[in-house]
């Protein structure tokens, strides 16, 4: 079963959410997912770029009441 860890980066600005995501990625296993909560709109578009560049997988990006839920899967 895939484990999912939630990281709350609400209230921090770029590149704070990305750095928190990377720190979280180091702690999870390959195949597991991480859900990042962010209020920074720039990070919502920049984080998928980083995920694609380094070779992890985007699972979903949704926005609810000004909070972005960015779900990624560790691929390596």
């Amino acid at each position: 079963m895939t484990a999912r860890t939630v990281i709350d980066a609400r209230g921090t600005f770029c590149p704070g959410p990305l750095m928190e995501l990377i720190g979280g990625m180091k702690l999870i296993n390959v195949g597991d997912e991480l859900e990042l909560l962010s209020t920074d709109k720039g990070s919502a578009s920049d984080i998928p770029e980083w995920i694609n560049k380094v070779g992890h997988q985007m699972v979903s990006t949704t926005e609810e009441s000004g909070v972005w839920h960015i779900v990624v899967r560790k691929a390596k």
Partner: protein
Amino acid sequence: MSSTKISVMVVSGSLERLQMAAMVTSIGAVSGDDVTVFLSMNALSYFVKGHTGTAPAEGEFGRIMSSKNVPPFKELFQKALEFGDARIHPCSMAMDVLGVTDKDMEPYLAEPIGLTKFLTNAEGGRILTF
């Protein structure tokens, strides 16, 4: 993922420029780029041990940014070292002018280098100056 060599020269002591230099360094390093930072002139004193890292804003944006929860530039430089391939060198000339030695500098800095070595290392890559 292709690796790009990025050499970042930081000479300004203004918040906006230090912040942008730290952002480029951290994002580049965590994206697989090979990043070398060279700290000189007004940027160096922020990396003397014990400096709070509080820099004066150059303009309106910096003043607004100061009131927001933006990651501090010294923390971003350290994230680059922690998560990526980066090294941060103080400028040997600027250290001489300030009268500081290796032991006075933040422990995460690499050895002091001069401009000749920085430029030699930068050959074939991108140089960004802040």
